[in-house]
């Protein structure tokens, strides 16, 4: 709370209205529209948007793809552990590990592009503004996919096998079975993953420090809101830090609201909804509210 009030005050403590917000949001550190013509840096707000726009669909897709792929694989738990390694590692270390992939000459990716003969991508990704953000985003996709994969895997185990048997008898192709059974039944899980991923993306910043520095890389090309707040904090500009933190909190609450509404309505809504749904479809309810506790308590593997 003191945080919130801080964002409306001048450093001396006087009331400043929305002035702090104006100065922070108006600064090119936060929002730099010229980048659409001139290239990065775009400012932390736009970087956050780009990050979300690429990271969210990619991790969702990769996680679901891996979860479905690994359903009937021998040694799937080992493969899952390998993919999940990125989730267990501290994000700051992930950032450092990215140096070993993206920096020339030690990194695999510049060497690979050099081998292919693509000059523009054979340099040091982390000191080139145009590749820095992209490289970091792919790094986070790499590390976060383990999360969506594990949660999707847990969700897949709650789908009764009979559904697929029945679909096969009816002559459905695997793609049809996926479209008509797996995907709809996983929708509540997808909601959870989307929410958690968005929350994670918003507070992301240590990977940027690990891979570059606290300035957000060359020219701030990979600056994000959380990092900006961190920087303001360490140059003791608490008012600006408070503004950024308040913005972050607002975004977070907007994202989290959907999940919390679900979460908190579950006990009261369950009684009302279940008979209606049962009457409507005469089918066991999909993995909605009542099957989730089993996933929660049984876990996977």
């Amino acid at each position, binding site marked *: 709370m003191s945080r919130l009030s801080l964002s409306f005050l001048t450093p001396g403590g006087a009331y400043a209205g929305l002035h702090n917000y104006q100065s922070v949001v108006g600064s090119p550190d936060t929002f730099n529209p010229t980048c659409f013509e001139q290239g990065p840096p775009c400012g932390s707000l736009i970087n956050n948007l780009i990050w979300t726009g690429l990271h969210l669909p990619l991790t969702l897709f990769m996680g679901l793809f891996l979860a479905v792929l690994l359903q009937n694989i021998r040694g799937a738990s080992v493969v899952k552990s390998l993919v999940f390694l*990125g989730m*267990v*590692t501290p994000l700051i270390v992930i950032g450092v590990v990215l140096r070993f992939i993206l920096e020339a000459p030690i990194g695999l990716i510049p060497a690979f592009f050099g081998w292919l003969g693509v000059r523009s991508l054979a340099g040091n990704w982390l000191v080139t503004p145009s590749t820095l953000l992209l490289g970091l985003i792919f790094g986070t996709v790499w590390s976060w996919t383990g999360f969506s994969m594990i*949660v999707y895997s847990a969700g897949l185990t709650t789908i009764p096998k009979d559904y697929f*048997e*029945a679909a096969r008898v009816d002559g459905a192709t695997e793609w049809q079975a996926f479209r008509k059974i797996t995907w709809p039944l996983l929708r509540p899980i997808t909601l959870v993953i989307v929410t958690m991923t968005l929350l994670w993306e918003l507070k992301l910043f240590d990977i940027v420090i690990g891979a570059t520095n606290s300035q957000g890389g060359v020219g701030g090309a990979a600056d994000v809101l959380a990092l900006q707040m961190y920087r303001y904090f360490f140059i003791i500009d608490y008012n600006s830090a408070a503004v950024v933190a308040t913005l*972050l909190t607002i975004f977070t609450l907007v994202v989290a609201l959907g999940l*919390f509404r679900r979460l908190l309505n579950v006990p009261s809504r369950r009684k009302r909804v279940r008979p209606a749904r049962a009457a409507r479809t005469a089918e066991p309810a999909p993995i909605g509210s009542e099957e989730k506790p089993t996933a929660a308590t049984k876990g996977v*593997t």
Partner: protein
Amino acid sequence: MSTPAAEGLPAPGTLRRRLRIRPRTVVVHVVAWAIGLAWALPFFGVAMVAFRPLGQTSLGWWHLSPFTVTFENFIAAWNNQGCPLSLGLRDSFLVALPATIIPMFIGALAGYGFARFHTATRDYIFLAVVLFMAVPQMMVAVPVYNLMIRLGLISSLLSLILLHSAWGIPWIILFMRNFYRTLPTEVEEAARVDGASDFKIFYKIVLPMSLPALAAIIVFQFMWVWNDFFFAQVLIQNPNWYLSTQCVPRLVGQFVRPYDLLSAGAILTMSVPVVIYVILQRFYIRGLIGWTIKG
């Protein structure tokens, strides 16, 4: 669903499918394993740099000749001048262990209260607790920093322990409440009939029954505290008490890239959560699922 018919019909098909290995199965296995190995390749690369002299790997760790294994890099990172990882790892343990145990007990007790006892305001308090989970860390940084300065705890590990304990309690409450709701109440009722007090029931009956959930919490909370960078950066500003996650970026020079130090430091810092994950994987995933797909 027409389950009886479904059970009857595909049986011959599935039998035949079991007996011979189809090429498609092989392809799927190869693809899956290739993806898994490719996913771990970056870590493998870092390990290759860490275990070999920098002279052999500075142009890429995939150059395999000459190949010698050395622990020099680890020793250098362990005794590094600016931020020795020996101290960093020690401090990380000193913070992570209490910051796991304290909130676990408080959260377990509170979660039990939310699951079993009915008061008029219970659901509203619970709502408030859960809402705390959504507050980003950045929001509390300045107030907590000021508070710790006033308490004279800044740059002491105790401040970090307190902050992480407070920060972990909401999700632990939520997790434990959901877990208790799956426990049958009969045992507790029987104990109550026998005259046991609420606390006695909790410590003698409920707590032992919830060991799997507590294990999940231990793994998850420990890893969270260990992997945290932000809170540590905010509260620990004395280089003598830097945690291991704080040390890692400090191994990077301004202009030079000490890849040998960096790789060894990265491996050392990530080794603790990775080892815990490998040993207690089951519990970790249970914690993660319980935390996200709440009941």
